[in-house]
């Protein structure tokens, strides 16, 4: 296998808060190769958005990298100076956020913004940039693309704004596209359309795509490989089919069991995961999931390591045997 495009190694991120340090990410390893669609799934507070922000180097001011590195191509992302980081984000790494409204300035037209996003593209004129913007809008399925360029973000529906946000992200032909909950704010019919669009795009896109979502359905529809996160750790990683059909970590199993979309029969009681996510300022010594795990025993009191059951499938649980 060729070197991965993106490689996160032993990344730990802390947030300074009035209540002490929140250990939001602990020793996270992750890889993405060109042509792959990676899913990062977990519940709120599991660190999936922190990981996405760290890759794009967009962590908030109170966050500190405690350990680890992020390699993108030949760059050590965390060591680049501010200018180089910005260039990397502008050209190579693009992000699509959950709320498409906040991705745009409300006072500029779509066209002005899509032209501005290409400011690192030297050597071509404004007219050509406008043409590229229009072509990209057509590609993401915006009708009347030319007219839309002169419109403002508020004139568009949520689904259309998300399409435009994807167009904006792809304008510079980045080699890494990170989509943080790209369909969460949308209705189910529009969600299906955005999933459809992302799938169509990947056919003639040779970069890597990272999809961050709490929705198992979205992950199943889109991704090739999945990282399951819990309380700041990767607890399982596997090819998509293994995650859904041969999950090895008790948390992954419990998460799948809770999804009402997987239950075909109406039951009296819906499955849940008892307990709450641990306090990330004061973590237990052993397995972070043990307090909620129905299989927990004495062996869970020590920190767990990722155990590989196959080349690409690993789970952070002592019950997993290679």
């Amino acid at each position: 296998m060729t070197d991965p495009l993106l490689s996160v190694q032993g990344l730990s991120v802390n947030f300074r808060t009035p209540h002490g340090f929140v250990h939001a990410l602990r020793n996270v390893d992750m890889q993405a190769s060109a042509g792959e669609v990676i899913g990062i799934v977990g519940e709120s507070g599991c660190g999936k958005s922190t990981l996405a922000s760290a890759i794009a180097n967009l962590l908030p001011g109170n966050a500190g990298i405690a350990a680890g590195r992020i390699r993108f191509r030949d760059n050590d992302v965390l060591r680049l100076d501010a200018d180089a980081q910005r260039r990397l984000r502008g050209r190579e790494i693009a992000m699509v956020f959950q709320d498409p409204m906040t991705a745009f300035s409300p006072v500029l037209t779509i066209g002005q913004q899509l032209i501005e996003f290409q400011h690192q593209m030297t050597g071509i004129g404004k007219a050509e940039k406008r043409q590229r913007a229009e072509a990209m809008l057509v590609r993401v399925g915006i009708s009347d693309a030319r007219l839309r360029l002169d419109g403002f973000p508020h004139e568009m529906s949520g689904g259309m704004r998300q399409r435009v946000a994807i167009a904006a992200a792809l304008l510079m032909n980045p080699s890494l596209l990170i989509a943080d909950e790209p369909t969460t704010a949308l209705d189910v019919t529009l969600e299906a359309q955005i999933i459809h669009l992302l799938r169509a795009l990947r056919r003639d896109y040779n970069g890597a795509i990272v999809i961050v979502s709490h929705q198992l359905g979205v992950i199943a529809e889109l991704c090739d490989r999945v990282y399951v996160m819990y309380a700041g750790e990767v607890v399982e990683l596997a090819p998509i089919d293994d995650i859904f059909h041969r999950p090895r970590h008790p948390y992954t199993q419990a998460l799948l069991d809770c999804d009402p979309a997987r239950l075909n029969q109406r039951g009296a009681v819906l499955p849940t995961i008892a307990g709450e996510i641990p306090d990330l300022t004061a973590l237990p010594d052993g397995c972070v999931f043990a307090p909620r795990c129905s299989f927990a025993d004495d062996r869970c009191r020590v920190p767990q390591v990722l155990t590989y059951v196959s080349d690409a499938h690993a789970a952070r649980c002592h019950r997993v045997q290679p």
Partner: protein
Amino acid sequence: MSALLNIANLSVCFPLAFGLMDIFSPRRERHLRVLEDVSLDLGQGETLGLVGESGSGKTTLARAVLGLVPRSAGDIAFDGEMIVGRSEGAFRTMRRKAAMMFQDPVASLSPRLKVGTLLVEPFIIHGEPVASRRETAERLLALVGLPAAFAERYPHELSGGQARRVGVARALALNPRMVLADEPTAGLDVSVQGDILNLMTRLKGEFGLSYIVVTHDLALVRHVSDRLAIMYLGRLVELGPTADVFRAPRHPYTRALLDAEPIPDPRRRREDLAIEGEIPSILNRPSGCEFHTRCRFARESCRNEAPDFTQDASGSAVRCHYPLE
């Protein structure tokens, strides 16, 4: 099953701002017709799921039932009593027996009041005497599985699931017979969603409640509701027992909604697109059947003639010229 709530031909429309230029365009719509001619019953002990995309009018319907938005036409009868007039007073008696769980649980709780105060607020609003505020708050907290100490907390100190539980407790304060739950699990993690729904199911049994659950989450209503009502552009387009609707949807829109749900199984990925386009503006309602612009089965007559909401003997109904078999 005798009906607890009867809604007959309920419509809600809001007047639009009228400017000088409108004189020159006399055909412009002057009213926003949010809810059009909705008729619906809710049985004793029944859970009805109200489903549709944003802008379909499902939340407006729930709010109109409680008089939180004024109706422009139609009748509402609760527990056999017709609600006369549109004033606050007309609905006050009913609101004692019919409570609302609002969509955003944190935003619907005043940030300046402690949970304990918030829980006795319904009694104060309705002028019900409360023997001991503390005991009342503790009783309600226990009901929804929260420790008594939560009475001293402020809403911002609660997690999403806890705030939702406080919302449930507040709705149940006055011993209602009907609860309207607007997106009861929106914004919650899947592991917590089940908790809230199980709580609602348990309380339904304990108190003999009837629910109207407003949601866009089909997987959720499938597990909690007895009947489903599907809305599109402020109208009911399909009504029927939940199992029947899921097994054999009759309206093409219902079918498209079911098909659009992402399936958490990579072996069953959908390759085709269930539905194209977006929900049209209610300022510019399509002619004929209002769904024809997005319907893959639309024929000529669908563009010109509006279909009726025809109900069959079993109580199922569909608004379509050519219902699916």
